[in-house]
């Protein structure tokens, strides 16, 4: 039934609102586009709870997972999403491909495209790599995390989860906690939340708050005990030791003491506060085990919702092929010229 509803009721609406073959960032999405993804995901969420977890929405389409960074969760989530939509999906990982032999990113992508892949899901350690790639291949590009820039499907699934738990996004108070500087999850969340009318605070050590972040429309706070007070949602970011050059904080121990969420600290928060984490959790660092597994935690809902969001994104981007705007790079070119004057 679901597919029929999507095909018929929402088809016209979708084609009007969604014209992208790529999902490169949340920054580029309008409020209406974000809402469309969330609504589409809601329809797809039900599919995963069926006995037969499959709809033919993308039958005959081929999707490639192109991962230049190790990832289990995101890759698996995309893989399941594609399979539940009946698409064929193949996995490339950097270590097993020719990039280690010096092939450039666009060469690799063009080779994959030459096998008539419709959509490429890419994770890459360089910020902007998804956008750059989208300019050199005709296949759709879904950004599964580019450097410290954005992780749009994570941002969207976080919005979805908040909307699910709090029934709304407008006016909801969300605090992102931890390493904002190196977090693509933070950037995607901030863009999405601000666009949807949520009130966003970022809280972390001053060394991990990027320059002029307040210009994105967020408040900055260094003191977590103050920050937790009136929040509806605490989205706790993972400390990514592998991304940090130099000493941003003296020790994990002190980080946990200042910025970890313990049961004790949670008492200062609203009684109905929701705790989120993109995973994997460093238990005892960002979250105590009691909090991670406690009643406020929606971490596993995020994982479940991730599949639904990725189904929605793969569906929207892959099915856009008959629509006119196939080359959003034109937008960024004109932006560049503006900036160059």
């Amino acid at each position: 039934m679901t597919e029929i509803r999507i095909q018929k009721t929402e088809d016209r609406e979708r084609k009007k609102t969604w014209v992208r073959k790529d999902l490169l960032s949340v920054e580029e999405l309008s409020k209406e586009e974000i809402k469309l993804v969330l609504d589409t995901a809601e329809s797809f969420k039900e599919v995963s709870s069926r006995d037969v977890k499959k709809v033919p929405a993308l039958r005959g389409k081929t999707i490639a997972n192109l991962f230049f960074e190790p990832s289990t969760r995101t890759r698996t989530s995309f893989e399941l999403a594609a399979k539940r939509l009946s698409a064929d999906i193949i996995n490339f990982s950097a270590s097993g491909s020719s990039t280690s032999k010096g092939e450039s990113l666009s060469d690799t992508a063009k080779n994959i495209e030459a096998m008539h892949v419709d959509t490429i899901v890419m994770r890459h350690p360089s910020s902007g790599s998804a956008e750059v790639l989208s300019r050199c291949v005709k296949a759709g590009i879904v950004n599964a995390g580019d450097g410290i820039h954005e992780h749009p499907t994570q941002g969207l699934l976080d919005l979805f989860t908040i909307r699910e738990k709090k029934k709304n996004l407008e006016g909801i108070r969300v605090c992102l906690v931890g390493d904002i500087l190196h977090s693509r999850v933070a950037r995607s969340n901030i863009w999405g939340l601000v666009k949807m009318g949520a009130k966003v605070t970022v809280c972390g050590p001053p060394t991990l708050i990027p320059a002029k972040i307040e210009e994105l429309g967020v408040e900055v706070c260094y003191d977590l005990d103050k920050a937790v007070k009136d929040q509806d949602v605490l989205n706790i970011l993972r400390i990514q030791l592998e991304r940090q050059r130099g000493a941003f904080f003296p020790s994990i121990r002190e980080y946990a003491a200042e910025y970890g969420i313990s049961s004790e600290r949670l008492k200062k928060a609203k009684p109905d506060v929701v705790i989120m984490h993109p995973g994997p959790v460093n238990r005892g660092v960002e979250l105590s085990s009691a909090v991670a597994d406690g009643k406020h935690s929606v971490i596993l809902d995020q994982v479940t919702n991730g599949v639904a969001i990725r189904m929605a994104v793969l569906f929207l981007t892959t099915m856009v092929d008959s629509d006119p705007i196939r080359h959003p790079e034109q937008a960024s070119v004109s932006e560049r010229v503006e900036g160059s004057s």
Partner: protein
Amino acid sequence: MKILIKNGHVVDPRNKIDGVVDILIENDRIKKVFKKSDVKADREIDAKGKIVAPGFIDMHVHLRQPGYEYKETIETGLRAAAKGGFTGVCPMPNTNPVADRRSDMEFMIGEARRLSLVNLWPVGAVTLKQEGKELTEFGELKKGGAMALSDDGRPITDSQILRRALEYAKKFDLTILAHCQDEGLFCGGCMHEGFISTRLGLAGIPAEAESAEVARDIQLANLTGGKLHFCHISSKKSLDLIREAKKRGSLVTAETCPHYFHLTDAAVLGYNTNAKMNPPLRTREDVEAVKLSLKDGTIDTIATDHAPHSESEKASEFDQAPFGIIGLETSLALSLDLVAEKVLTMSGLVEKMSLAPAKILGLDRGHLSEGAVADITILDPTQQWVVDATKFESKSKNSPFLGWKVKGRATDVFCAGRQVLKDGEIV
């Protein structure tokens, strides 16, 4: 061989000429500068409506030979220079191997002589392999033709080494060209640190990475009395320090490049690797400060930091792409905008592109005195053209100005009386 350049508007800041006069070249020298000549010459060039200036000098380029001939060669680089209106360029020593020996200087100069295009005045390394550890043989380098010394691209982090270099260079009257960059603050950054770097998720380089090192280098210049020149200054903070130092009598000099008075970090949007250079493009406030500093003399000269890179290198991910853009063929037009915007007078601009760099290098060039070497640039300040990658003489195309409509172009270039550019084409 006598060549008469007549009816041109001659701009010679040193001799305070700014009007229509004729110039007679005899062989490699300027024979006479006079009004309304009736002298017979073997050739006459009518420069009516054009500016006749001392040959332009770009004291900061990268010609990539030896070692990176796929980016540029001495030949393509010097052709680009001639096309851009330059009669002399100073290539930096970050070739492979690093130009840190006398023979490296002799090789480059020999190539330039053989090519017979424009002057090549090489810059030797300050330290062996530009490693910042042991001084090169300044005396030998000078004998080989080194016009200045620099570890450009790599800052000399050890203050004591730079101090010794500045002291020792006094004996040879060589200027040290400083690439100011605090390595700790630079920390793997790839664009200016600010709102845009935060948005794009690119590691930022704060302006203080430049200005902190400028502050140190001013101290060392004052301590030693050595000649220190600041390369490619990009930030207001650095310029405030240099202005203050000059006011207090320090002898430091400074250059900037056209991209620092035309572009801001917004040019990086879309992950445009042709807007990636080091130091990085900064803010509108910095752009305005660069212009003010050109006007008030804080900045002495305009160089290009011409840094060719291949298309595939620049096609890589932003953080992986090399720093640098080409500039020899666009510098003049982009700098003429300063005259249109009344930041500089024509005479002021000509000085910054000819006499000033000559003075910093200790070269007897940059003027049109009788008896001087006939290095002359004739330009048409009104000619409009579009920056087109397919028309560059340079081997590389990495310019952020592609597609720009610009105004002003060199039409003729004489190098020691020999015409190397005629009607905008290499002879």
